[in-house]
């Protein structure tokens, strides 16, 4: 329900009250606190207060070697760890001019896209849980479990992966992984169709999401919001296309864009993205070249002085790593630009005047991962 437009004028400061959402609240999906000033059921101001899980990863980057920082990158956005691996190894490879063998690049793409699907499945189930639908979680987690099993077999971990290395990968994939991934792609397509029929086209869901929490392309630009939030506002911005990295330029996929800008548009972007990820995985498996998975890398890594950026399309949007080197074996500065941080920063402006349940529908549609904001 859209709030009447005269909300600010009928707001009497003596009749408002402050509602603390979080830092321990299921709808915040982690330790995020939102200080809401309410006028009855309407939000007059929602101020996000992050920082409860701040770990200062950027300082940790300055007191260990380039290699030692790599496991940290999987713990920033724990749902799309491989993308964060990718951005950091990409920045270091760019600086040190390390060649990555083609086989390793293809495997990076395959595993990254699997990770994207598993991340979107967690968002989908948690979001529907927010909106009052419990059952989809059980289906989505069954699908996600298959991805976690596949990735566990080759990376050694289920969530906080540290699979990529400077110059390649720590492990080649085997036939079991290839067959398992092909089987997963074949299984997942009818599941996504079922999710569309049962959930996406469900009238209750659509009434909860259509027209709720409109975010314009201009608002996204002013706040630097990216990923499904920007693509749900009609802008086809995807780092995989505009700043192509790895072997994405050799694969055929398109960027789902929905112009409505409401919560439903952001929902649809992610659902359509999973289908595109399946396409990417299939093509990359077909094209997978033979050869080594590790390039030539010096034993002690010293990057040439200067600063280097590397951006990837993580599940939540543009993730950029900016490293500054002073030609030592430890970084001088590691800056992590994370998508959830910028996506949440527009919440205060976007949620003004909404009803509380709608403001929560908007919050969930941003797909926040709190350690990604706090770092």
């Amino acid at each position, binding site marked *: 329900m859209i709030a009447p437009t005269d909300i600010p004028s009928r707001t009497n400061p003596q009749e408002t009250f402050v509602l603390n959402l979080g830092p321990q609240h299921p709808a915040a999906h982690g330790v995020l606190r939102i200080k809401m000033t309410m006028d009855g059921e309407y939000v007059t101001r929602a101020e996000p207060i*992050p*920082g409860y899980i*701040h770990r*200062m990863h*950027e*300082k940790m980057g*300055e007191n260990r070697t380039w290699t030692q920082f790599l496991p940290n990158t999987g713990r920033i956005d724990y749902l799309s760890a491989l993308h964060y691996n990718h951005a950091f190894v990409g*920045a270091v490879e*760019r600086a040190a001019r390390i060649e990555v063998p083609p086989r390793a690049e293809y495997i990076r793409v395959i595993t990254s896209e699997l990770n994207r699907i598993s991340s979107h499945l967690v968002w989908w189930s948690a979001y529907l849980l927010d909106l009052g639908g419990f059952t989809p979680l059980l289906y989505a987690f069954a699908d996600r479990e298959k991805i976690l099993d596949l990735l566990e077999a080759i990376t050694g971990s289920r969530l906080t992966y540290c699979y990529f290395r400077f110059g390649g990968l720590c492990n080649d994939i085997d036939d079991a992984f290839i067959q398992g991934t092909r089987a997963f792609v074949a299984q997942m397509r009818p599941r996504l169709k079922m999710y569309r029929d049962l959930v996406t086209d469900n009238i209750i869901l659509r009434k909860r999401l259509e027209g709720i929490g409109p975010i314009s*392309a201009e608002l*996204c*630009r*002013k*706040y*630097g*919001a990216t990923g499904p939030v*920007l693509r749900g506002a009609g*802008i086809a*911005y995807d780092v995989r296309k*505009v*700043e192509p990295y790895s072997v994405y330029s050799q694969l055929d996929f398109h960027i789902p864009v929905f112009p409505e800008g409401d919560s439903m548009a952001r929902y649809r972007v992610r659902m359509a993205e999973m289908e595109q990820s399946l396409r990417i995985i299939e093509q990359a498996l077909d094209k997978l070249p033979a050869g080594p998975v590790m390039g030539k890398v010096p034993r002690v890594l010293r990057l*040439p*002085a*200067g*600063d*280097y*950026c*590397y*951006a990837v399309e993580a599940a939540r949007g*543009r993730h*950029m790593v*900016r490293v*500054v*080197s*002073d030609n030592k074996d430890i970084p*001088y*500065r590691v*800056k992590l*630009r994370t998508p959830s*941080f*910028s996506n949440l*920063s*527009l919440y205060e*402006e976007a949620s003004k005047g909404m009803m509380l349940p709608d403001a929560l529908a908007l919050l969930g549609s941003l797909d926040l991962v709190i350690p990604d904001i*706090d*770092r």
Partner: protein
Amino acid sequence: MIPSLEQLAERFSRLVVTNAVPSRSPLPVTTGSAPPVAVATPAAAAAGQTAAPTAPPCPVQTVDYPLKGYHLDVSISPRQVVLAAEILDQNGFALDTITGVDWIAQNEMEVVYDYFHPLSVLRVVIRTRIRRDNPEIPTISPVFPGANWHERETHDFFGIRFSGHPDLTPLLLPEDADYHPLRKDFTA
């Protein structure tokens, strides 16, 4: 509203010429009738000329993207950051991030503004240097409201004050934090 790299480089070199403040600025800004801008060729960038972490050789440089991850590198004086933000805003750019780098040996703080363009392939880096003992720089949050949080975070980590910022209370650090952990002389 999609500018070309050449147009932007040209616009920023005019900015550097007209508003140059040579005093205390580490930038080798030259004045005179001839434009001081030497736009680096990709070959020059490949030779490592863009890699200096200290004062860059010239204020406006086009950069070979595959080597650095951005297209345009602009070094300006601290008082020009708002003007630079306005130019990029008018050209349809979005703010990627703001951060600092503590160059303790030179007694300077570098403030780096990253921008991307949502509709085209253009990455711009704006950088400036300020004194380390009294780091202060104007806020760009009126131009890009998203800068509000990035500047608060930079204030948390480096103690850089953004003058005109509406609320510089700690964002990620505890609310009573009076330390700045990314300063190189910080000890826990």
